[in-house]
């Protein structure tokens, strides 16, 4: 039997690591020095207020934007040393689920899912069709093949986006606000799917969200992104934290004073 400590050592090494990353868009600094680690095979959730740079963290990991300083390691590679073209092999290990799906709106659902397979695998038509059907089944969608993204509901778009993100079996799944704009039932559904991706594909899942309830249910590790750095720990540790910033965030802003009642528009 493998001793637990050994198992933990392999499971806990950082799969993705940001260290002392400074990111600014023009004059607007998003964060000055962020360091955080995302452990292999775990579900990590990045929490933070609007404008705190949560989505930027994912875009940095995917190499879509480049920081002014710091280093980012993804699966052992320092991605800042790579050009856009050299990023392509790295990105094949990554799947990304965008906030509003980012499905190609000129293609049907089927085409959207078949597209990455056609680009990167040598499968026959029948194999690709079978793989697409299997992914759609896995996210619980049927009879949507011929619909265009514009004809889907918000929850369906998210599920198709998830199916597309995992169709090439990535080892790291990045999810930008997977629960935004969804009803509670769809939230549960997406949550279940993400947990399944993590368990069945053994993928490292990095989620950016401000949905506290699902975060607390599913996260192995929570990273709270604050203007002056990060606080990280397990969901339980954060819940027990007495740090006023953590408490304010987890109470969904209950302790934050409302704007003065006599403020003028």
């Amino acid at each position, binding site marked *: 039997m493998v001793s637990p400590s050994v198992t933990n050592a392999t499971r806990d090494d950082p799969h993705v690591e940001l260290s002392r990353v400074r990111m600014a868009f023009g004059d607007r600094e998003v964060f000055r020095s962020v360091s955080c680690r995302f452990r292999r095979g775990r579900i990590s959730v990045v929490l933070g207020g609007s404008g705190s740079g949560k989505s930027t963290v994912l*875009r940095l990991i995917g190499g879509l934007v480049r920081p002014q300083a710091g280093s980012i390691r993804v699966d052992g590679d320092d991605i800042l040393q790579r050009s856009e073209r050299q990023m392509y092999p790295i990105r094949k290990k990554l799947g990304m689920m*965008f906030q*509003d799906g980012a*499905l190609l709106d000129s293609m049907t659902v089927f085409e959207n899912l078949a597209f*990455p397979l056609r680009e990167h695998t040598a499968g026959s038509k029948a194999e690709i069709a079978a793989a697409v059907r299997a992914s759609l089944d896995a996210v619980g969608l049927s009879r949507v093949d011929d619909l265009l993204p514009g004809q889907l509901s918000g929850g369906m778009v998210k599920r198709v986006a998830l199916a597309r993100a995992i169709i090439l079996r990535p080892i790291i799944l990045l999810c930008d606000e997977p629960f935004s704009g969804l009803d509670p039932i769809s939230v549960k559904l997406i949550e279940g799917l993400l947990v399944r991706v993590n368990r069945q594909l053994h993928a490292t899942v990095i989620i950016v969200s401000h949905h506290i309830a699902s975060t607390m249910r599913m996260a192995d590790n929570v990273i709270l992104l604050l203007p002056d750095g990060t606080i990280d720990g397990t969901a339980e540790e954060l819940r027990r934290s007495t740090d006023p910033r953590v408490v304010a965030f987890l109470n969904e802003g209950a302790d934050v004073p409302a704007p003065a009642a006599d403020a003028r528009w």
Partner: protein
Amino acid sequence: MVTPVEDLGWSATRFVVDLGRLALFGFQVVRAALAPPLRVRRFVQEVFKLGVLSLIIISVCGLAVGMVLSLQGYNTLVRFGAEQSLGAVVGLSLIRELGPVLTALLATGRAGSATTAEIGTMVATEQLDALRMMSVDPVDLVVTPRALAMVFVMPLLAALFIVFGLFGAYAHRLAEELRHEPGTFRHVTYRIDPKRFRSRELLYLEP
């Protein structure tokens, strides 16, 4: 005093930077066009969107321009008894200058703005970032097929514009002559005789 000078310098460097980026972009398009994969299906789709869907506006404008050239050209030439060179004037100006220039403006207005809006939407809805995350070069998939399709359809559209322009000029003259000299049916067929219009003058391209 410093600010206006600063502004001027800033716009000047900005202009040069933009020029450089445009050149780089052009280079990327050419490189993507030469390297595999060849996206034939995308190219055909774009030829339809940029070319076929521009047919109406191109033919209507060509017709109108041809008619105007014929109307104004005839009125001027007839004073010098040179109305028989109308075909040459209309043909020359349409084939050499007006046809390609106006087609380019029309194609930019219709197809160009539609393409810009489409790609702009793709940027705003993160579709181009999604492509990058799928290890697909957006220039290769989105821009190059459109650029190639535009290069392919422009001469065809210009040719169509010219044909419609010549037809417009011919139709205008024909209608005028029928109006002023109403004759017998034989007379009409004589007037319509295409030889009269597409005789040497029209095809004679050197002034």
